[in-house]
C-alpha cells in the first residue's frame, strides 16, 4: 500500500485510521436487490476504487454512501458514526464534508462556472460576494481553467466540464471526495491528467477519495484499495489493492476483469 498522505489539518499521522466503513449493506430498488452483504472499510487519505462490471450497482453504492438513497439494511459509518441513523440535521453536517463529482458533470446549466462553484460557498459560509468570487477563481485555477469564470457550461468542452465539476466538489475543502466515473468520455491524455489532478488534490488536501470506475489504467495508477462488485452474485467478491488482486486473485471473473480478459 502506498504511503498515506499526511492530513494537512490533523496532527495524527500515526498509522492508518478508518475513515469510512460500510457494514452489511443491502441495496435494493423496490423488491429488486442490487447488492447485498457489502462490508468494507476505507482508510483516511486513501484512494478507494469501487469497481465491477456494468450494471453491478457501483453508482448505486455511491448514492447510498453520500446520502441520496437509503439502504434497505446495514450501515454506512463516517469516523465510526452511523450516517443513516443520524438526525437529518446531523446528516446534513456529514454531507457538508463530502465533495461529489458526477458522471455527467451535473453542472447547473443556467449558471456561469463561477456561480456553479459559488453556490455551495454561499450556502455554507458567511463570506462576502467578493471573497466567494475570489475562492471560485482559485478553484478554477486549481483545475487549470483560470479566466473561464463567466462561461456557461454549454460553452465549454466535456473535459472542461468534468474539471469544473471537480472544482465545485472541492469548493468547501471536503474531507471526502467522491467521483462517479471521472474519466468517462475523456480522451486518454485528459483522463490521465484528471487522475494526476485527483492524486495532487488528495496529497495536498489530505482528503479521502472514493472513485467509481472501470478504467483499468486509472484503477492501477491511483488506486490504493478497492472493492469488486459482482453483478451476477449480487455481492462483493473481493477487496484489496487492485494490483495485488490482479496478481493473486483466484476468482476467474476478477482476474478477467483486471486483465481485460487477455491473460
Amino acid at each position, binding site marked *: 500500500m502506498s504511503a498515506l498522505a*499526511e492530513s*494537512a*489539518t490533523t496532527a495524527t499521522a500515526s498509522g492508518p485510521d478508518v475513515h469510512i466503513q460500510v457494514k452489511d449493506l443491502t441495496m435494493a430498488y423496490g423488491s429488486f436487490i442490487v447488492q447485498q452483504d457489502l462490508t468494507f472499510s476505507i482508510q483516511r487519505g486513501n484512494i478507494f476504487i469501487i469497481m465491477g462490471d456494468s450494471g453491478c450497482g457501483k453508482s448505486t453504492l455511491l448514492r447510498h454512501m453520500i446520502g441520496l438513497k437509503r439502504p434497505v439494511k446495514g450501515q454506512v459509518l463516517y469516523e465510526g458514526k452511523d450516517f443513516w441513523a443520524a438526525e437529518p440535521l446531523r446528516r446534513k453536517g456529514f454531507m457538508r464534508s463530502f465533495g461529489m463529482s458526477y458522471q455527467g458533470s451535473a453542472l*447547473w*446549466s*443556467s449558471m456561469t462556472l463561477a456561480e456553479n462553484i459559488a453556490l455551495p460557498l454561499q450556502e455554507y*459560509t*458567511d*463570506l*462576502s460576494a467578493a*471573497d466567494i468570487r*475570489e*475562492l471560485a477563481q*482559485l*478553484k478554477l*485555477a*486549481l483545475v*487549470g*481553467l*483560470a*479566466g*473561464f*469564470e*463567466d*462561461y*456557461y*457550461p*454549454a460553452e465549454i468542452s466535456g473535459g472542461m466540464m468534468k474539471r469544473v465539476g471537480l472544482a465545485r466538489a472541492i469548493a468547501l*475543502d471536503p474531507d471526502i471526495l467522491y467521483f462517479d466515473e471521472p474519466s468517462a468520455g475523456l480522451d486518454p491524455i485528459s483522463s490521465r491528467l484528471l487522475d494526476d*489532478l485527483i492524486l*495532487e*488534490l488528495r*496529497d*495536498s*488536501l*489530505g482528503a479521502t477519495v472514493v472513485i467509481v470506475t472501470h478504467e483499468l489504467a486509472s484503477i492501477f495508477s491511483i488506486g490504493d484499495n478497492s472493492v469488486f462488485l459482482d453483478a451476477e452474485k449480487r455481492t462483493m467478491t473481493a477487496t484489496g489493492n487492485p494490483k495485488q488482486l490482479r496478481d493473486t486473485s483466484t476468482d476467474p471473473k476478477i482476474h478477467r476483469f483486471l486483465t481485460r480478459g487477455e491473460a
Partner: protein
Amino acid sequence: MEDSYQLKLAIAGPDGLQITLTGNWKVRHALPESAPLEDWLDSHPGTKQISFDSTAMSGWDSALLTFLVRVTAIAAKNTIQVDQSGLPDGVQKLLHLASAVPERGDARRTAGKVSFLARIGNQGMAVAGTATEALAFLGEAALSLARLLRGKAQFRWSDLLLTLQQTGAQALGIVALISFLVGIILAYIGAAQLVNFGATMYVADLVGIGMARAMGAMMTGIIMAGRTGAAFAAQLGTMQVNEEIDALETLGISAMDFLVLPRMLALILMMPLLTLYADLFGILGGLFVSVTTFDIGIIEYLHRTQEAVNIRHVMVGLTEASVYGVLVAVAGCYQGIKCGRSSSAVGAAATSAVVSGILLIVIATAFLTVIFNVLGI
C-alpha cells in the same frame, strides 16, 4: 468556529520579509486581508524576498490559499521573490497547481460598454433576425406538409396518435369546464343588458352566436397555447438540450418531419373538434343560467339557439380554430427547435411559446374578423 488566524510580518536578513502564520487558517467569515502586507512593503521599499514560517499554524483551507495567491500577485508586481519552502507541502503543491496552467489570454470576457444607440440598433437587428428565422421555420413547415401530401414525410404514425390523444382527448375536461364558464359569463352579461329591453329571450342568440363564431375557437386556442404549445416547446427544447435532435439530423431524418409535423397535424386535426365541443358546452352554460336565473324554459332556449345559430357561424368558428391550431403548433415547435442548451432555456422556450401563441391568436382574430366582415359572412 471562530476565525483565529494570525499574521506576523518581520524583517529577515538585509532585504527579506518573513511572514509568520499562526493559529487556525480555516476561514468561514471573511478571507484574510492582504492590506497589512502592502502597508509593510510601502514602508520597506527595499524588500527583495518573502519567506514563510508556518510551524505554529494548526490548520488551513482554501482561505490560506487565496491569501497566498494575493501575496504572490503583490510580490510579482513589486518584483519580489517568494520562497514557498516554509509552507506546508500540501499548500506548496496546490499553489503550484493553481499556477500550472496560465490563464488563456483570450478566455476572459470583457464586458464593454455599449452606447444607447448601439443597443437600439442591436435590438432591431435581433428582431429582424428572429423574424427571418421564424419565416424560414414556417417555410420549412410548409415544405414538410407538402412532403406529407406526397407521402414522403418520415415520421412514426404512433407518435401522431399519441400526440392526438394528448392534445385532444386529454384536453376534454379543461375545455369543457372553461367553455361552460364562458357560456355562463356571456349569458349573465348579455341578460343584464337585454332585460332592459324586455328581450331576455335573445340571450340564447347571444351565447349561441358568440360561442360558435368566436369565443369557442378563441378559448380553445388559448387553452391549447397554454397546455399544448408549452408542452411542445418543452419537449422539443429538452430534446435539443440532450442532443436528441442532432442525433435525428445525423441519421438523415428531418426533425421537421419527424417531430414538428406530427405535432402540427395533431393540433390542426384536434382544434376544430375541440372547438365544436367547446361550442356545445358554452351553449349549455348559457342554458344553465337562463333556466336557473332568468326563467327561460329549456325547450324555448334550445329552439331559440337552433334558429339563431346557422351553419355559417359554425364554419366561421371552425375556420378560425384551424388557423389557431396552426399558429399554436408553429409557435410551440419553433420555440422548442430553436431552444438553447440549458435548463433555463427550456423554461424560456415554454414561456415564449405560450406568449407568442396567444399573441398570434389575438392578431389572427383581428384579421379574420375584418376579412369575414368584408366578405359578409
